[in-house]
C-alpha cells in the first residue's frame, strides 16, 4: 500500500500572553490509500491541532508551525503557498467538524453551500452544480433532497446537518477526509447512522479517512489503525487489533480501563487515570504521562522515551519497553493496572 499522507516530526505552537503553548511536539504518522486512521486522546492532547495543521487552518499568528513536514500526494503541505493550498483544500482534502451547526453558514441555503465548492473546484455551471448537489444530498440519505437543498441549516436536525456536511466534504471526491469528532454532538441512534454512512461512502469512493475522536467505541467500529496522542506527542500507534488487544503504553491501558462498557459488571470498579494532563506552556522534559503513570520510573521524568518498534506497524513511546526496565503488569487489557488506592 502506498502512503497518501505522511506527517513527519510536526511541531506546532501558539503564542499566548502566558507564553508559548507547545500544542504539538513532534508527531509522526501516515495514512495509506483507502484506510481509516483514528487519532484518539483527551481534550488538549493536540489531535485537533494536528488535523487543522494538515488542512492549514491554523491561524498564523498566533499559531506557528515550528518544524516538520506534511507530505500529501507529492507535495509538502507546510511549504505550499496559500493559493495552492486553497486549491487542494476542498478538492483533494476535505474536513467535517464536530459541531455541524457552527460549521455551516446559517445565511446560505444548504444547496448553495454544496454547489460553492463544485463551482469553484470542478468549474461546473450553476444548473449542473445544483443537480449534482441534489444527487449528493440523496446519496447521504436526506429525504426529498430537491426541497431540502433550498432550505437553510436551521431547518435541518443535528443528524441531517452532519449529513449535509459530509455531502459538502465529499462533493469533489477528496482523497483524504478529516473527520474531527463527527459524532460527538449527536445522539447514539443518529451516531450509528452517521458512522454507517461514512463506512458506506468510504467503500464506494475509496477515500482515506482520519477520524479524530475520544470515543474508543467509535474507533473499534470504523478504524483500521489507531494513533494514541497525549500532551502533544504520539505515545502509541498500531493496527486496531494491536492497540486494543495488546496495548503497550500505560496511558492506552488507562484509557481502556476507565471506560465503562455494556458488558462490565455493576460491582466492578472503573479504574480512573488519576490527576490531569500537564500544562503545555512548560511541558515536562521527560515522558509527559510520567506524573499520572503507575509504572513511572526515575528515567521517565528525566528523558523523553524513544519510539520502540514492536512490529512493523506497532510502535510505542515508553521506557517500560527498554530491555533494562522492570516487567510491568501489562498485556492484560482492562485489568492493566492495580486499582487506585
Amino acid at each position, binding site marked *: 500500500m502506498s502512503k497518501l499522507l505522511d506527517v513527519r516530526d510536526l511541531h506546532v505552537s501558539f503564542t499566548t500572553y502566558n507564553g508559548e503553548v507547545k500544542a504539538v511536539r513532534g508527531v509522526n504518522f501516515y495514512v495509506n490509500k483507502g484506510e481509516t486512521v483514528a487519532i484518539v486522546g*483527551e*481534550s488538549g492532547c493536540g489531535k485537533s491541532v494536528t488535523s487543522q495543521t494538515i488542512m492549514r487552518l491554523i491561524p498564523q499568528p498566533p499559531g506557528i508551525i515550528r518544524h516538520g513536514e506534511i507530505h500529501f500526494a507529492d507535495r509538502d503541505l507546510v511549504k505550499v503557498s496559500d493559493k495552492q493550498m486553497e486549491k487542494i483544500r476542498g478538492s483533494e482534502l476535505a474536513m467535517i467538524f464536530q459541531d455541524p451547526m457552527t460549521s455551516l453558514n446559517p445565511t446560505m441555503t444548504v444547496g448553495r453551500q454544496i454547489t460553492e465548492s463544485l463551482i469553484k473546484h470542478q468549474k461546473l455551471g450553476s444548473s449542473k452544480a445544483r443537480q449534482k448537489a441534489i444527487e449528493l444530498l440523496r446519496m447521504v440519505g436526506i429525504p426529498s433532497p430537491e426541497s431540502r437543498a433550498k432550505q437553510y441549516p436551521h431547518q435541518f*436536525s443535528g*443528524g*441531517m446537518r452532519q449529513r449535509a456536511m459530509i455531502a459538502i466534504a465529499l462533493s469533489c471526491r477528496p482523497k483524504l477526509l478529516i473527520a474531527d469528532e463527527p459524532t460527538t454532538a449527536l*445522539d*447514539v*441512534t*443518529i*451516531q*450509528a*447512522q452517521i*458512522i*454507517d454512512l461514512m463506512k458506506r461512502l468510504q467503500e464506494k469512493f475509496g477515500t482515506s479517512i482520519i477520524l479524530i475522536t*475520544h*470515543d*474508543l*467505541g*467509535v*474507533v*473499534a*467500529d470504523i478504524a483500521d489503525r489507531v494513533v494514541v496522542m497525549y500532551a502533544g506527542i504520539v505515545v502509541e500507534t498500531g493496527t*486496531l*487489533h494491536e492497540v*486494543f*488487544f495488546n496495548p503497550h503504553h500505560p496511558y492506552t491501558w*488507562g*484509557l*481502556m480501563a*476507565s*471506560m*465503562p*462498557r*455494556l*458488558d*462490565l459488571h*455493576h460491582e466492578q*470498579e*472503573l*479504574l*480512573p*487515570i*488519576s490527576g*490531569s494532563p500537564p500544562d503545555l506552556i512548560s511541558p515536562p522534559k521527560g515522558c509527559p504521562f510520567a506524573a499520572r503513570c503507575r509504572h513511572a520510573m526515575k528515567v521517565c521524568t528525566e528523558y523523553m522515551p524513544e519510539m520502540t518498534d514492536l512490529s512493523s506497524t506497532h510502535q510505542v513511546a515508553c521506557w517500560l519497553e527498554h530491555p533494562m526496565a522492570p516487567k510491568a503488569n501489562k498485556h492484560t487489557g482492562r485489568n492493566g493496572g492495580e486499582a487506585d488506592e
Partner: protein
Amino acid sequence: MSKQERANQVTKAPAKNNREVILSVKGLKKHFHLGSGQVVKAVDGVSFDVYRGETFGLVGESGCGKSTIGRTLIRLYNATEGSVTFKGDDIYQLKGKKLKEFNQKMQMIFQDPYASLNPRMTVLNIVAEGLDIHGLARGEERRKRVIDLLKVVGLNAEHANRFPHEFSGGQRQRIGIARALAVKPEFIIADEPISALDVSIQAQVVNLLRKLQKEHGLTYLFIAHDLSMVKYISDRVGVMYLGNMVELANSEELYGHPLHPYTEALLSAVPIPDPDASKKRERIILEGDVPSPINPPSGCRFRTRCPKVMELCAIAAPEWKEVVPNHWVACHLYDKEQK
C-alpha cells in the same frame, strides 16, 4: 426463548417491595407553552418510584424529556399535571418550613461545570451558600465544614479561596458535588454530571459519586445519555422516548433482556470499544430523527421509527404495564391479546 415467552414467564425477580420508596412520581406531565397555541409536551405522563439508597438511571436521546423531569422534581419547574411525593409529602404543596426542609434534602448536580458555578464567587462561598441559606454553620465552623467537604471530594484547603476559572472541568464538577453535599441531602439529582468531561476524568467523578453514596447513604437520580455509564452506575434504569417512559427495569435485566424495540435499538447503537465484538454483532440502525414534541405521532410515539410497527400502534397508545416482575414496558408487542 422468544421475548413473549419470556415475558409471560414469571421469573424469580428479587422482591423489592419491602424497600422504602423515597420518591414517587405519578402521571407527571410538564408542558411548555410556546405561544400561538403551540405546546411542547416535554414530559407527558411519566410514573416511577425511587427507593432509598439506590441509583435510578434515566436515559434517552436529547429532547426526550429526561432533564425536564429532573428539573421538575426539584421544583425548578412546576408540574403541569401529576403528583410527586418525596418522603410522603406532595412536593408541589409544600410551604414554609417544610419547603425549606425539602430544598435541603434534595440537591442537584448540573451538567456544565463551567456554567453552573458563579465566576465571581470564591469556592468557599460557592460551597457555603447552602449552609448560609439554611443557617447550618457560621464563621470558623462554616469555613471548617467547607474545607472538610473539599477534602471529601478530593480537593484541598488551599482551593477554598480560589475562583472557578482556576480549575479544570473535573475539578469544577467536584466543587459542584461539594456544594450539593454541603447541606447533607438525602436525594441528589445528577443531570448529565460527566458528559462535559474527558473519559479519564469521567471515571474519577463516577467513582467519587459511588463512594459518597456508600458513605452517606445517598439516593441518586442519574440522568445521562451515555448508556454504558448509566448501566454501570445504576441499580434500575428508565428509558425515555419523546416525553414518555417506554421501559423500566433493573439495569442487568434491562441490558440483558430489553423488551421495547427502542431500548433494543438504543443498546445496539452503543459503540463497543472492542473491535471483534463490534464486528460480530448486528446493529439495529433506526431510520430518521426523533419527531417534534410539539406534534408527536398518534398512538405509540415511537411508531414512526419502530422496526416492529403494527397497525394498532398508530391507533392506541400502549399501556404502561409490568410484563415481568419489576420490568415495566409500554409496547403493544406485549399486549395480552398478542399471545
